[in-house]
């Protein structure tokens, strides 16, 4: 029990479960999953499907935050990526062809890589502070997207492109597979190679890592490129969902939700130790919460307040300070104090 309680992800997972239980209590249909035309439907499936873009962005954000950085440009990158992909499909001879769509997706992700490279370049080579470096693109990116779409909201008709966000595979939403694949790839690359360890080392102590021979700059650079690529993919998902490239609405405020997901997943904004699983749980908390707000019929004017209130509760419940205070309080009530720590005895050699 103590091990479960002491686990890093105990509180995030508990918060997620609490939200699910709360929903199940007030809306009986919440946990029900029905099969229609061989496809699974239900509120839980919707949450998983809708969380895909935020999942991608938050995964990239986790890596960047682990290096002591932050990537504010992800929303703008999503807008550019969607604009590039849809403009390509729009101008192609055959918008419905699979080949066209695959090239469009590749182009969208490639644009994400390029923009991530730009961020990484500013941060590592010129030593611009991450918040400033990525702010540049956050502000300029949507302008670039508008430039690409010519100031319009480009819409297309292309069944294969629509499949990315709305299609089903083996009875499950295709977006869910993309999202799971992104988690798996990031987790494997980080934990099966040494990248995760070196990223944490650089995030905790960049100078010590450099002196130990770690390619600090290269590792930081990689994180921004990964974040850009994942945001590019998120942009594809978003535009596929609405089948339009909306330069202003695509990924709006998603950088903030992504940061929130990372923090909910117990990765410190100070960098260092990070948790992919934690971020995934954080994303699901946010998505479930948004679904709850929608269902409870909280008016759109009040929904941010409700949302903020729940987030504050979740964050405070996780706070180590609160836990320390509570344990001190319960300890005092039982009238005992912690036993003094046993000092380590050492055999030492000393010259007089």
């Amino acid at each position, binding site marked *: 029990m103590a091990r479960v309680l002491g686990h890093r992800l105990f509180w995030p997972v508990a918060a997620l479960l609490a939200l699910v239980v709360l929903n199940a209590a007030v809306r009986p249909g919440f946990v029900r999953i029905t099969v229609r035309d061989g496809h699974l439907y239900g509120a839980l499936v919707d949450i998983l499907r809708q969380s895909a873009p935020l999942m991608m962005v938050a995964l990239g954000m986790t890596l960047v935050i682990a290096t002591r950085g932050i990537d504010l440009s992800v929303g703008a990158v999503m807008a550019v990526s969607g604009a590039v992909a849809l403009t390509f499909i729009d101008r192609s001879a055959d918008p419905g062809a699979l080949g066209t769509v695959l090239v469009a997706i590749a182009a969208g992700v490639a644009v994400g890589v390029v923009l991530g490279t730009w961020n990484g370049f500013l941060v590592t080579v010129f030593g611009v502070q991450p918040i400033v470096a990525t702010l540049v693109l956050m502000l300029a990116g949507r302008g670039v997207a508008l430039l690409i779409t010519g100031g319009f909201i480009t819409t297309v008709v292309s069944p294969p492109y629509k499949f990315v966000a709305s299609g089903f595979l083996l009875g499950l939403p295709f977006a869910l597979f993309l999202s799971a694949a992104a988690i798996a790839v990031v987790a494997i690359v980080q934990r099966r*190679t040494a990248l995760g*360890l070196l990223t944490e080392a650089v995030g905790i102590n960049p100078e010590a890592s450099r002196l*130990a021979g770690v390619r600090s700059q290269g590792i930081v650079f990689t994180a921004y490129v990964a974040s850009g690529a994942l945001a590019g993919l998120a942009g594809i998902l978003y535009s596929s969902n609405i089948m339009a490239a909306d330069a202003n609405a695509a990924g709006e405020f998603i950088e903030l939700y992504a940061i929130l997901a990372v923090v909910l997943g117990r990765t410190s904004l100070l960098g260092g130790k990070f948790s992919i699983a934690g971020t995934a749980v954080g994303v699901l908390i946010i998505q479930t919460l948004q679904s709850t707000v929608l269902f409870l019929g909280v008016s759109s004017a009040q929904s941010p307040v409700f949302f903020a209130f729940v987030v504050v509760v979740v964050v405070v419940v996780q706070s180590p300070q609160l836990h320390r205070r509570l344990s001190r309080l319960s300890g005092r009530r039982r009238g005992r104090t912690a036993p003094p720590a046993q*000092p380590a005895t050492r055999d030492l050699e*000393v010259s007089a």
Partner: protein
Amino acid sequence: MGENGAGKSTLVKAITGALPLAAGVMTLDGTPRTFRSPVQAQRAGISSVYQEIDLLPNLSVAENICLGREPRRYGLVDWKGMRERARSALDSLGVDLDVTSQLGIHSLAVQQLVAIARAVSTDVRVLVLDEPTSSLDADECAELFRVVRRLRDRGAAILFVSHFLDQVYELCDRVTVLRDGRLVGEYLTRELLRIDLVAAMLGDRHIPRRLATGLRVAGPNEPPYLSARGLTATGIRGADVDLLPGEVLGVAGLLGSGRSELARAVTGVDRIQDGVLRVEGSESSFSGPREAIRLGVVYSSENRRTEGIISELSVADNITLALQAERGVLRRLPETRRRELAASWVEALDIRPADLDRPAGTLSGGNQQKVLLARMLALAPRVLVLDEPTRGIVVGATLEVQNLVRELADNGVAVMFISVELDEVLRVGNRVVVLHSGRVVETLPAEDLTVDSLTALVTGADGDDG
């Protein structure tokens, strides 16, 4: 005084309110007091300076001195008053410093003095100094002691925690010895023999051998593994240095003489502006520490906390970090291999507690130093450059580190050993390089030198002022 884990730091923290009392009473001026935080203790006139400097390097000197008790006017910070107060606090220490400058640009020794100025700038009745001299050299220590005596004469009580026997004897009136968290005894310094003090600190454990003075292992004609000619970088000018396999080269010099700068220049940490660096006879210019490590030249910084240990990573991660970095991202050390390797170093260097998964930052200073040594040694280096490896660690651990360095040299590693403590340089080194104002003044065999003659060389007292 007391050995590692004797409870010195815990006692200090209890007195200054950083840790709550589990039991017992503390009286100040005859009235029982309990402090729930260091701020309360400070208001009652109990100030402290900790071993590792806990100031804010990105703020100015004045802001650091007045932090948490900024003078106010109409509810706003009175900047002018703050600067004046900081200046007068530094003046009382006899330190001349621009109080508007950013703290981080100053050396560690100066930062230490600022920390002390911060402590004494309040109306101090009890001043707690926890290992304040571990980053100071002889002159600065003397300066500090002068200030401490002045405070004592003004009626303040001073609690001086140190592992330097000499300093305790020079400064203190009474000595309290702790062991395993308990009081062993309280003695008048002038009545206590050193041997008895050490015995009290260690208990019934035996007092073992003195470190054998290193005999030269390498032959006189053996070529150096690494040699520098006319090396010029930030802080050093035209230095000639040879590092021979099997030899410890001691580096002695005052603060600002270019000790660390020399170490950083020969290990690729700082860029070389001029001069030639040869590794095994062929000219090399390191583009960075990574390149130096590839050629077997490793560096351990004097700033254990900021440039050494990755505090939140485990002991095993810390030990294998450099090896992993050398292998690259894709060739991850297999988990079992990694743990075996770390465990073997933990055992070989007697790192305590022997827990591979413990965050390295929670270890004591001496054990952190050993973790760093293990990290370097896991690379099987040819040249080991150690910048103050024994700073801020206790007597016993210091000797363990010194023995280890000797052993490494006996196994054919070329070692550069930098220390402010001249007797240590003489004890460990085969030859000693004397630095003054960024220049190599002389390179002499250690056996031809005494602490006094080396002191004279280091301070330039023989008329050669570089």
